[in-house]
């Protein structure tokens, strides 16, 4: 028998313990009547601080209870020490419970769920620990009973501690990082619910630490939809459809340092996406049942959800066959038949054939060793014959088969019906008929059928679609009946200037388009004007206007080409003044090469002069009778190119004896003049000449309305003609 020694204060402690237990009982019984003065609230709030004492003290006492020391004196001391520990532990537990009861009186802790369990298990600790202490003090110690009590205390400690942590940190706080269900985006897009998988996780993570059933701060709990709808002390949480006036968003959007900003400063804040998500959820009516996938395709909420959730579970095709021998694939690959895997280390193979001259039935037969792997065959435009379909039908894994514009007649289509996986079949550009297509009805997996440009009429295609209900029939581009305007005829001639005569060649790129023209300057007509046939011989200055017409099209805009006769070509030509180095054309020849320069000044067919006149002398070996000199020039005021200020034509028998034959002052360039090629006519009485000099002077200064006002103008020349 070990002598029971007591510390002096133990008796007092024991009494205190008893009294405190009574007080707890009182608090529990009259909990609804108790009103807490503020100073007690301070004590109550120290509950989370104090609770560590009972945990440690009672745990140590529990361990000591299970230890037996061999030395009797030491054992006695240990027992005494354990008893003291037990007493302090029980006392601290009692104080903690009292504080906890005070704390639970504060707003936000409603008496349901976790809090209740926490309270009762906490009280349980007090009582069990107290009972244990008194048991130890009794004359007949019962070791087994004591040990059992210790185990119960420890269990209660663990349970109470855990429940308490759930209240302060939120449910499942400890295990959350390793609980897979807690991870975001585990739900695939097509199964997700807006509230359950988008809204609730945000609330759980950022709000429910304080707003849960156990600890509803501001009388707001967020666990259940009803609670959300009910709101808290400050009123309803949101007005469905009106996020602007909803308390939830108001609090979220308050400045971070505002007192009512939620979550409170220092706690994890919501990200912009999360705020946006709550906004759109409320805006959309705060539906608790809506499915994400049911939202309109471009709903903001849906788009937002797409980034947060796992992408829709794709039914990626599963290929349950092994890969082919790489060497074999390599061997069968050639320049005209390409076989490649759909991706690195993937078994399925795709075949493409190119160049119809290199294709024959063997090209398919040789592939048979790969029939277990080939899932796509693209044979469009190859001379595939009806008989080849029998070979193709052995490729049991085929998903896609393109036979458009091949030589198929369609007689053996039934061979393809046996392909178990064939999903897409293209027969466009083959003469298949309704009757032949019937064979494909048995094809089990068919989803797409390309049938445009076949022997089938629009009505037939309609019929096919109704016969093949599960199949998308692709009927191709349908002309809506809107007439289109033809493009203009094209001129095939390069020279626009001729000496005696010229073969005019007009063409139109569209087969069957007719070209009608006039040469009298009138607008061509699609019924009256003569039809252009192959070519037209012209031998004088002619302006041809032409349109293209075709049945089923609107006639084109008229096109106008002018052809100029130049009866004489000088035997030599000399530029007295040199053109600007940027626009040298092809030298003096530019002026007499029978090529018009078009309207592009930078195309190398023009001579350009800036600030100085063009002066050119042309010599004829034999005198020629001339009554007209025409100078080709350009007007493009936007590019600083103006019609010349004046043109002077001088003539005579040689360079020393020239007299002025004509001076022309062309119309000055105006502001919005279009870009045009000019042909400036200088006519004079018929004179026999062997030397002609032309001086073309640019305008000295650009006019005031021009952006480059004051600068010297440009003048461009391309061709000088003599008649």
């Amino acid at each position, binding site marked *: 028998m070990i002598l029971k020694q007591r510390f002096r204060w133990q008796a007092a402690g024991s009494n205190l313990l008893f009294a405190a237990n009574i007080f707890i009982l009182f608090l529990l019984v009259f909990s609804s009547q108790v009103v807490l003065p503020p100073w007690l609230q301070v004590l109550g709030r120290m509950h989370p601080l104090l609770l560590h004492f009972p945990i440690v003290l009672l745990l140590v006492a529990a361990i000591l209870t299970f230890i037996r020391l061999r030395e009797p004196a030491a054992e006695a001391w240990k027992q005494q020490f354990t008893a003291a520990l037990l007493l302090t532990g029980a006392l601290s537990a009692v104080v903690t419970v009292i504080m906890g009861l005070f704390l639970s009186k504060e707003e936000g802790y409603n008496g349901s769920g976790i809090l209740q369990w926490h309270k009762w298990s906490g009280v349980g600790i007090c009582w069990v620990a107290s009972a244990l202490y008194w048991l130890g003090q009794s004359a007949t110690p019962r070791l087994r009973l004591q040990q059992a009590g210790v185990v119960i205390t420890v269990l209660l400690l663990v349970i109470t501690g855990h429940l308490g942590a759930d209240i302060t940190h939120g449910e499942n706080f400890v295990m959350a990082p390793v609980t897979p269900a807690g991870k975001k985006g585990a739900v695939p897009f097509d199964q997700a619910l807006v509230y359950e998988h988008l809204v609730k996780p945000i609330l759980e993570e950022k709000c429910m630490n304080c707003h849960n059933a156990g600890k509803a701060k501001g009388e707001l709990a967020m666990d259940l939809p009803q609670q959300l709808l009910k709101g808290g002390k400050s009123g309803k949480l949101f007005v469905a459809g009106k996020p602007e006036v909803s308390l939830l968003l108001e609090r979220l959007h308050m400045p971070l340092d505002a007192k009512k900003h939620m979550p409170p400063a220092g706690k994890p804040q919501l990200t912009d996406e999360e705020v946006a998500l709550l906004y759109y959820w409320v805006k959309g009516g705060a539906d608790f049942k809506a499915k994400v996938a049911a939202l309109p395709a471009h709903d903001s909420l849906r788009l937002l959800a797409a980034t947060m959730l796992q992408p829709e579970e794709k039914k990626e095709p599963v290929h349950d066959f092994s890969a082919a021998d790489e060497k074999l694939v390599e061997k069968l690959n050639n320049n*005209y038949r390409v076989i490649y895997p*759909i*991706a690195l280390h993937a078994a399925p193979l795709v075949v493409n054939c190119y160049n119809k001259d290199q294709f024959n039935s063997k090209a398919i037969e040789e592939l048979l060793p790969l029939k277990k792997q080939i899932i796509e065959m693209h044979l469009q435009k190859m001379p595939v014959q009806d008989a080849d379909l029998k070979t193709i039908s052995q490729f049991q894994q085929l998903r896609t088969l393109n036979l*458009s514009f091949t030589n198929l007649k369609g007689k053996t289509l039934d061979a393809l019906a046996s392909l178990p996986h064939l999903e897409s079949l293209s027969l466009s550009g083959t003469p298949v008929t309704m009757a032949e297509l019937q064979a494909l009805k048995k094809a089990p997996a068919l989803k797409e059928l390309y049938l445009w440009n076949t022997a089938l009429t629009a009505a037939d295609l309609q019929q096919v679609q109704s016969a093949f209900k599960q199949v998308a029939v692709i009927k191709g*581009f349908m002309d809506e009946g809107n007439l*289109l305007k033809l493009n203009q005829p094209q001129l095939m001639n390069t020279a626009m200037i001729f000496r005696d005569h010229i073969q005019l060649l007009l063409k139109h790129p569209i087969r069957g388009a007719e070209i009608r023209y006039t040469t009298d300057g009138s607008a061509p007509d699609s019924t009256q004007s003569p039809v252009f046939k192959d070519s037209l011989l012209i031998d004088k200055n002619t302006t041809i206007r032409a349109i293209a017409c075709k049945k089923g099209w609107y006639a084109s805009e008229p096109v106008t080409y002018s052809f100029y006769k130049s009866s004489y070509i000088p035997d030599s030509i000399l530029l007295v003044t040199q053109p600007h180095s940027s626009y040298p054309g092809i030298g003096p020849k530019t002026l007499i090469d029978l090529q018009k320069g078009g309207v592009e000044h930078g195309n190398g067919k023009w001579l350009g002069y800036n600030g100085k006149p063009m002066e050119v002398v042309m010599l004829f070996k034999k005198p020629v009778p001339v009554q007209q000199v025409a100078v080709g020039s350009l007007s493009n005021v936007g590019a600083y190119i103006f019609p010349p200020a004046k043109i002077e034509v001088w003539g005579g028998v040689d360079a020393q004896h020239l007299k002025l034959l004509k001076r022309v002052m062309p119309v000055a360039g105006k502001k919005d003049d279009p870009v045009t090629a000019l042909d400036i006519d200088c006519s004079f009485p018929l004179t026999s000449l062997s030397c002609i000099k032309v001086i073309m002077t640019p305008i000295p200064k650009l006019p005031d309305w021009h952006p480059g006002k004051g600068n010297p103008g440009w003048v461009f020349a391309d061709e000088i003609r003599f008649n």
Partner: protein
Amino acid sequence: MKNEFIEHHLNMNRRKFLSRLSLGVGSLALGSLLIPDIFGKGGAEEAPFIPGVPHFAPKAKRIIYLFQNGAPSQLESFDYKPKLREMMGQELPPSIRMGQRLTGMTSGQSSFPLVGSHYDFKQYGDSRAWISDLFPHTAKIVDDICIVRSMFTEAINHDPALTFFQTGAQQGNRASFGSWMSYGLGSENKNLPAFCVLLSRGKGNGQGVYSKLWSNGFLDSIHQGVQFSSGESPVLYLNNPEGIDMANRRQMLDQLSALNDQSLKEFGDPEIATKIQQYEMAYRMQTAVPELTDLSKESDDIIKMYGPECLVPGTFAANCLLARKLSESGVRFIQLYHQGWDQHGNLPNEMAGQAKDVDRASAALITDLKQRGLLDETLVIWGGEFGRTNYCQGKMTADNYGRDHHPRCFSIWMAGGGVKPGVYGETDEFGYNIIKDPVHVHDFHATVLHLMGLDHEKLTFKHQGRRYRLTDVAGKVIPGLMA
């Protein structure tokens, strides 16, 4: 002396050794905390890149890029901003501009008057996307396309911006987009180049395109873009010279390649191997190209769909039709450039002409690919290098104005090849800044590569000691753009 020697040895006694050891182990532990995989994956070389095969099953196999060179205005095409019409002529608020840089062309302007679209917008399709009246045919295919209204870039002038879009860098010494694609995925049809380029020009104010845009950069020269021209021989120097027939040519090539083989063995320069391959491909192209570029056999329906201009070589419509044929024949990347979209002035008139050039044919390309079942595996992209300002450049009249360069937001569209149709991204009501889902050029590249079955971080090429990527060191795949 001896003592000192012993003392020196004592500098490292057991106690010191252990304490230092603990310090060392401690810093190792700290290091591994800071860089989690410092001891894990580190050290081991990552798996070498295998060119020519997609990393994962691709959504798209081929790309047709309808580049609108010169930067079409988003405000007259796909980004509807009624506010600008309301505030016509009023000053651009500084709170919107936020002091961001302007080009030298308008930075000197004393006033930045807002200008609304001259053209009306209407809503189309399931997505109710707003499209301007300038693009009636694009409006018809709106449910097949994804309009991205929140593109942005870093460059503010044409050449750097264009180069950025085409090579992933502004400076222009990198491999172009198509070359990367050729390198990463290889050629489907060995009789044609994997990367083809087609040029056309509208009547609007134009900006040049240069061959550096389809350069292979540091990649093997087989990945260079091949330009098809509109003249008599679409591919230059492909036809046999007069008096040489195919048999002759074959014989010449055989002998040449024997010589080249010899020097390859001697010098081991991979460019020689490339040269041999290129000669061989050119030989096969001699039969493949004429068949492809012959548009005369196209049916009337097709011509009506693309518009009659499609038979005039060198037009955008003809290039679209050719692009479809090239794509159908397995060309991996077809790059079109349509010039003339640089509307600093006279925008309403010039833009109408430009839109007329491209609208019908762009839409027809989508329709045509769709009816051939090719839209699912072909990615079509339409767009320019940046956007245009919401304020007027130069003089503003009731029905005429101009717009300067604006890199901070612009619209492009994509179709087919795993793209999710609809509208993506949003700009503010002034059409100046992006307010939702911005897409950087690098992001765009990363997403397109992803659709092609390539991981943009794995598609690398080691050159001058570093690994290069199309997306440089940035870019993220944008799931919202993908179906």
